[in-house]
């Protein structure tokens, strides 16, 4: 029971995806191939990978890939192309007659039904595009940064609803927001320069990023030698200033901080055995010096990660 796509050699994308039913996040820097992957799955990317869903292959006759309209997929791009001369109601009704009033309340499109796309903000257009895709009622819902213009709170509500209601057996969403990917997905798949890494649960991904670039992408800002040839990664959001043995791994270090470039920021520097890791964090902290840090769910990896923060 999985959605699989294998990208062979020769193309930009390399590797494979294998997603069981659930909500899956797709992450990667700009230009890494997230949109290319989703478009291939939707059947819009030209000749592409062999895609199977629950064992059945999405292939038409003579080895041609199945066209998009024959795939059990609803795809929402980042910039949705709502038909400019049709009302929102007619566009949703066109996708699935009688569904215009059944858009989920969380999308807040009921007041927009009589309007035309040009009368909507970018965020509203994205919500309408999602409502339209939901009306298609397909097995696989592909969302390509499709809520990028929706305000933070509303976006969070929609993501929560998608995770709770699961309107499609497979939901795959690409995002630049790490916290969103980690919080609302069952697995996270990372793409770097076209290379697709195996999907991992958010916790497992944070525990074992495959390489330094991925670690940095996940928010790690440096590492200290663990003593056994391995390295302990430092993540600002998982680091407590001071020694709290009951909460995680305590490392003795010389910690101090200075005001950051902005009023809400503070620069932190941690020195240990000749290595320094520094980062910018939130300004609120009861201390600005300490002799140790505590790493919550410390990640140990076989590579080192240089700190890229420059200390003034």
């Amino acid at each position, binding site marked *: 029971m999985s959605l699989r796509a294998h990208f062979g050699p020769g193309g930009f994308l390399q590797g494979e995806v294998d997603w069981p039913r659930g909500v899956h996040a797709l992450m990667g820097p700009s230009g890494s191939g997230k949109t290319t992957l989703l478009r291939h799955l939707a059947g*819009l990317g030209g000749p592409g990978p062999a895609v199977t869903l629950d064992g059945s292959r999405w292939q038409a006759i003579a080895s041609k890939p199945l066209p998009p*309209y024959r795939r059990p997929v609803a795809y929402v791009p980042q910039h949705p192309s709502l038909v400019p001369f049709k009302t929102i109601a007619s566009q949703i009704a066109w996708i699935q007659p009688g569904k215009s009033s059944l858009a989920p309340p969380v999308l807040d499109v009921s007041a927009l039904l009589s309007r035309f796309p040009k009368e909507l903000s970018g965020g509203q257009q994205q919500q309408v595009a999602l409502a*339209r895709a939901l009306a298609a009622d397909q097995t696989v819902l592909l969302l390509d940064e499709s809520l990028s213009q929706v305000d933070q709170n509303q976006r969070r509500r929609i993501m929560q609803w998608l995770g709770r209601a699961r309107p499609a057996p497979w939901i795959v969403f690409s995002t630049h927001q790490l916290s969103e990917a980690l919080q609302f997905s069952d697995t996270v798949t990372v793409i770097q320069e076209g290379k697709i890494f195996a999907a991992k649960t958010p916790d497992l991904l944070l525990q074992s990023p495959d390489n330094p670039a991925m670690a940095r992408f996940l928010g790690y800002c440096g590492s200290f030698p663990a003593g056994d040839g391995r390295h302990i990664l430092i993540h600002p959001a998982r680091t407590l200033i001071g020694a709290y043995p009951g909460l995680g791994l305590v490392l003795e270090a010389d910690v101090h901080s200075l005001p950051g470039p902005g009023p809400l920021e503070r620069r932190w520097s941690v020195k240990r055995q000749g290595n320094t890791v520094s980062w910018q964090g939130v300004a609120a902290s009861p201390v600005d010096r300490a002799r140790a840090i505590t790493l919550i769910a410390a990640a140990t990896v076989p590579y080192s990660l240089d700190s890229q923060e420059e200390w003034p």
Partner: protein
Amino acid sequence: MLKRAGGLITVLTLVMAALPVLILLTEGARHFPSALQSPGALRSLEVTALSGAVSMLVIFAVGLPAAYWLRYVPSPAVRRAAGVILVLALLMPPLVLGLVLAYVLAPATWAGQWLNSVHAASNSFFALILAEIYEAMPYFVLTAWSAVNAIPRAWEEDAWALHKTPWQTFRFVLWPASRPGLITATAMAWARIVGAFGAPVVVAYHPTALPVQIWITIEETGLPQALSLALWLVLIGLPLPGLLTWRQGRTP
């Protein structure tokens, strides 16, 4: 100052553009009711209307699929070649077009021989329609292609990716989006068909269409009667493009 000068130049340009129409309306109106009573005039009006309708139907039936097909041609070289061919056909002097058609339809050629065995190749209703189609087709295809091509591919792709077939997408998205441009293409082709003279005068002197009849009237009766007949031609050919341009609220 610059704005005022620009306005003045524009007004002068518009007056110059309107002058032929004004002269035609004033001078042509003098013999307008009796213009159709001259020998062959009424028949030429009928021929123009009938051949125009048939030519328009053929152009629509052939040109519309061609315009849509050209939208989907993946090869830029093919698209460029198609564009050049159509522009050359559009810019070819109608008289030259008529000479080429006359050569092709002549009994000495294979095509002319075959056509003559079926039906009179030149100086026939068939030849008139062929001449009108040749003169008007590039206008229609180029304008329709441009209109269809202006529709973003993303509109279609989004619909396909929401489980809509190409035919459903055509009906809901492509056709309504391209309709204004297709109407303009139709209006331009119609004006061109009705006014076709260069090619018909060579290959289809008979049955005589209105533009050729106007030429005959100049030679046989004089300019005032010809102007009145020309007014009939304009009344058939130009209201549609004029009305459409007015409705779209923009210049062609």
